[in-house]
């Protein structure tokens, strides 16, 4: 346990050129802006098209990590769950799952961050930079939720 605030990473991923696939990246941007305005300590932001193996090294340096991504799954506006390490991989492996990143982090970097996956419901995935109205609403709800989540966590030693 640290006596200082926990080191927190909010990592949004997706392709902002593909409509609602931008949701994770947009959440990261909004949280970044808010954290700077509020001068909140120990909150870092990162963004990328997708997760990959080098992210295992990155998350090893944090106590709490939130991976945020757009979702096609049957969730309400958003849903956040704890990530369980897993070795399962997709066929092409040009990207990996949060579970895989956590598993790799545990295994080769001895990192033990508490990792969450935030799914934000999306609807359309065309070549556009503007997210749909429904996705925007879901994003706003998710941003509020994450702000509360972060406030709750930065005030307590990890």
């Amino acid at each position, binding site marked *: 346990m640290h006596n200082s605030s926990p080191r927190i990473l909010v990592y949004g*991923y*997706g*392709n*902002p*050129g*593909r409509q*609602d*696939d931008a949701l994770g*990246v947009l959440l990261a941007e909004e949280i970044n802006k808010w954290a700077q305005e509020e001068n909140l300590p120990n909150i870092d932001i990162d*963004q*990328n*098209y*997708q997760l*990959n*193996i*080098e992210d*295992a*090294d990155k998350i090893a340096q944090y106590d709490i990590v939130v991976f945020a*991504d*757009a*979702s*096609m*799954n049957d969730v309400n506006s958003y849903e956040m769950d704890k990530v369980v390490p897993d*070795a*399962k*991989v*997709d*066929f*092409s*492996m*040009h*990207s990996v799952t949060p579970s*895989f990143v956590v*598993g*790799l982090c545990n*295994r*080769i970097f001895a990192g033990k961050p508490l990792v969450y*996956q935030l*799914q934000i419901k*999306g609807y359309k*995935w065309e*070549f556009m930079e503007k997210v749909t109205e429904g996705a925007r609403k879901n994003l706003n709800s998710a941003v509020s939720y994450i702000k509360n989540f972060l406030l709750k966590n930065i005030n307590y030693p990890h």
Partner: protein
Amino acid sequence: MGQKITIEPVTRVEGHGKVTIHLDNEGNVTQTRLHIVEFRGFERFVQGRPYWEAPVLVQRLCGICPVSHHLAAAKALDVIVGAGTGDGLTPTGEKMRRLMHYGQIFQSHSLHFFHLASPDLLFGIDADPVKRNVIALALENKDLAVQGVMMRKFGQEIIAATAGKKIHGTGAIPGGINKHLSSFDKKHFLNGEAPLNIKTMVDWSLAALEFFHDYHEKNKAVIDEFIEIPSSYLSLIRKDGALDLYHGVLRAKDQNGNIILHDVDYQDYLKYIDEEVKNWSYMKFPYLKELGKEAGWYTVGPLARLNNADFIDTPLAQKEFENFKSYNNGKPSHKAMHTHWARLIEILHSAEKMEQLLEDPDLTEGPLTVKGKKESEGVGVIEAPRGTLFHHYKVNDHDQIEMCNLIVSTTNNNQPMNEAVNQVAVKMMTGKEEISEAMMNAVEVAIRAYDPCLSCATHALGQMPLEISLFKKEKMIDKKRNR
């Protein structure tokens, strides 16, 4: 009526692929096809947009290799702004782009080898997929797994430093580049704390080759006999015959090593290459016009580039290239698993190139862009990690894009991937009633040797994993297998 086996590797928003294998009643393979959905809407999407937006816009196309599209588009637009056809940029402009490109090749190839290939090699093609991955690799050989992660990370950092940011980078612009490499980044990459410095990357590239050679020595059958796909080979080549991943002329060799496309200017690619549409596939089949649709198909990628090159202009990679050529008696290698060998040689070459460039003062000073007489049409070609990538644009008097044509690496490899899957099917499914794990793995390994990009852009949660179905008389006789 025979049996039909279906393998659906991925289904994303639009990009997906599946394999169908048809068997007759005696269990003989009668037909094998790899279906990959290629998204063509992008070419229409960019119509009407100002041409200078293209290098950023095209990164929407693919979240896997955005740098390759970024650079290929910028090269095409160099022609349109009058900056020449690849050799007219300022030294800073060209060298910054090359550094970005070698970073991309380095990280992409490293990911492929350590994350995909080495688990296959270490644990065997018929091993459980749960074991054939880098986490299992870490249990067996932690150093190798760490090297794979950190090499990928180093390449990504080079890209971020040259392209400006991880998503929708802006580094390459028509006529050059938009910034110098910072002195901080240069120092960091050259002399940063180990392992993230270029000298370590060169050492680890050599170590990866040593690992491969050791494996090859002990497992010749896997590397040399898995499958062989004789074909023609297409790639860029430097005018003097050197391997060049960023710029050059187009060369093709036939399966015996005879040059059949004689180092031509890629601005004229339509004179030499056409694409066939087949009614069973969403993806086109490119071919060399001179040889026709049946005989003109070709392979692109690391193996094609090494088969076509006369030499490599970096010393360590040249030494490995000589071994590679000697092992294949100076002839083109058609062995699919030699693609991994070729990929490792390109990793080493990219590391050496990055080291040379990082020492070059042109990266931190000098003019960034050049412009000349405006043209209405331009073609940009680059050797992306997976192979030759074509971008072709026409613009109107209002500077709007009115035509865009792309031939991506995976499309260029359409026929060879079909041939590879067919060979595996004949080898492993003849006379079989059920899909074995080994057969499914072998299909994966065969396709993955070409490192196809099946996804092309989005990565939202909720995608379908690998599936296989076995049909007999139109009835499924083996359940789908999800991974």
